[in-house]
């Protein structure tokens, strides 16, 4: 039993307590409140909504682990989506072939990564605060996108893209499959690779990591590059789901991605945090909004409840640490 719980701990880490409890609470509360909650319909709506927010959250996670932040995630996704849209339009719009789509995806990921490279270089070489660098990148990309699209929609894509946003394989939505693959990739990256190891170390103490012989600048540039590339994947999925690209799509997700990371037990100062608890936190957020929908509330109320949930988890963590201290004191 102990070894089993040890193994569980090793898998999930101490960060799991908050999102895990929230997950159980949400399932219990809504399961009791609404008979339709525990149904395939709920699963379906969560499964289709989760990937967009989820992919952007993965893009936010890596910079937060280094003690930074990437406020440009949503607009990087938009610009990457725009890149794909243009490649498709330049190759015949609705008649574009699979080759054009593949080329467009590659270019979209390249554009997303490029935005990350620029931020990474500025952060790594000037030590400017990541919040400021990514904030100005965000303002720049928003302006660039609005300038290029004149604030309008870009649409008219070949039909075969649709399934990427709406289709299912063996009953599992395609976007969810893409998302889960990305979650696993991030999990392996963070737990099994040198880059992941160094990401955590830099988050705790950059100078000491540099003294240990790690190329900290390279790690930071790579982290923001990967973050940008992940934004691009989110942008492609968003293009397929809405069948259009508009600058500002998903803008409201920006601070939710940060909220999801914190809810998933990621340390706001960097250095600690795991992918799986963040994944669970994302499911909690989506279940909450689906559940609230079922009982007649709208997405705005769900947003407010998300905020309350984060406050609740933080207050509980504070109370738990207080309790632990007083328990230790009394115990001896």
């Amino acid at each position: 039993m102990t070894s089993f719980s040890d193994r569980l701990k090793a898998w999930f880490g101490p960060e799991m307590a908050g999102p895990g409890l929230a997950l159980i609470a949400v399932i219990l509360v809504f399961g009791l409140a609404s008979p339709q909650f525990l149904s395939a319909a709920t699963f379906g709506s969560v499964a289709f909504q989760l990937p967009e927010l989820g992919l952007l959250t993965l893009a936010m996670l890596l910079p937060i682990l280094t003690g930074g932040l990437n406020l440009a995630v949503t607009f990087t996704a938009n610009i990457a989506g725009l890149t794909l849209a243009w490649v498709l339009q330049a190759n015949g719009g609705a008649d574009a072939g699979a080759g054009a789509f593949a080329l467009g995806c590659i270019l979209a990921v390249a554009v997303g990564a490029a935005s990350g490279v620029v931020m990474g270089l500025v952060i790594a070489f000037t030590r400017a605060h990541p919040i400021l660098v990514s904030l100005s990148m965000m303002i720049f990309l928003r302006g660039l996108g609005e300038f290029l699209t004149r604030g309008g929609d870009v649409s008219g894509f070949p039909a075969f893209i649709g399934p990427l946003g709406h289709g299912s394989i063996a009953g599992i939505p395609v976007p969810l499959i893409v998302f889960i693959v990305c979650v696993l990739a991030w999990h392996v990256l963070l737990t099994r690779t040198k880059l992941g190891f160094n990401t955590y170390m830099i988050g705790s103490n950059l100078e000491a990591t540099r003294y240990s012989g790690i190329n900290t600048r390279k790690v930071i540039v790579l982290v923001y590059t990967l973050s940008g590339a992940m934004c691009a994947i989110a942008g492609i999925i968003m293009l397929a789901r809405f069948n259009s690209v508009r600058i500002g799509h998903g803008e409201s997700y920006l601070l939710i991605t940060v909220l999801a990371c914190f809810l998933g037990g990621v340390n706001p100062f960097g250095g600690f945090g795991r992918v799986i608890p963040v994944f669970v936190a994302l499911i909690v957020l989506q279940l909450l909004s689906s559940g609230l929908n079922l009982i007649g509330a709208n997405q705005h109320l769900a947003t407010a409840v998300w905020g309350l949930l984060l406050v609740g988890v933080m207050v509980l963590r504070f109370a738990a640490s207080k309790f632990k201290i007083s328990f230790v004191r009394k115990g001896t």
Partner: protein
Amino acid sequence: MHSFARTHATEVALLAVITVICTVLSFATSNFFSLGNAFDLLNTSSVNIIFAVGLLVVLIAGGIDISFAVAASVVQYGTAIALGWIGGGGWISGLVIAGSIGICLGAINALLIHRFRVISIVATISTFNIYFGLLMFFTKGVSIYDLPEWLTDRVVLFEHEMADGSWIEITLPVLVMVLCVIATWVLITRTTTGRQLYAFGDNPEGARRFGINIGAMQFIAFGWLGLMAGIGGLVQAHYAQEVVPNALYGRELDVLAAVVLGGARLGGGKGSVLGCVLGVLLVAITQNGLNLMGVSPFAFKMIVGAIILVAITLSNTSIERLFPFASQKGARR
């Protein structure tokens, strides 16, 4: 002057940049360099400057606040409703109500941060979502257009026609903005409380050992920003002549960028009212100039973003090389 340049390197650099931009714009456009345009700039920047000086106080105390802009929207609705209850009101009662609601919303942040030890970015991202979600939920996204007349009437305190036919106007928003700027300046440079805020932001543990009331510092900083958000919200409603629930959504990050451009430091202990105002003005002047030069409005933000990115990159690398007199190491042994 030498000493001012050394202790206020950021402000001097900003002034230099603004001067360069203004000089260029004066030659590039026919009507940038006019008093009329200058006052126009002040009128349009008032709300952002009010928000900025409020945010400055929180940054100085070592915090950050993402929620103030949506808090200002909440204030707009709350004030509009409260004014309805009291049957109209006037500027004084409006400002008192808006300020009070703003202070309460700021105090919620301070409570989370101080009492429950939630770090400020986490706390304010939560309250951002709570305030905005609840506001949209209860208002159902509906705007208010039937505001009291005193609130929507333009108040021109001073006007004068120039020889070239342009008008100089000082409107109420500018007066309110100037009062907020002066009040903030007095608070953070002339009162012991303000200096304690700096000390607390600079070295929280040191401040604690000297018996500074940490809780009071958080409540004063976030309360002040709440007050400014409330006042700014009311002024914005006056300026726009309507209350739209998501009108200020996203404004928080623009203001944050401008304040930090003005030399405030994320992490606390540093920043000045002058730098903060110059930071907002730099962005406003750039936009205004681009507009007069006939650049597409869609390109403004892109260029402004690029300028901020370059400014931040430069200020972190070579400000000492650009302005040797600003060197910090001059006094070392």
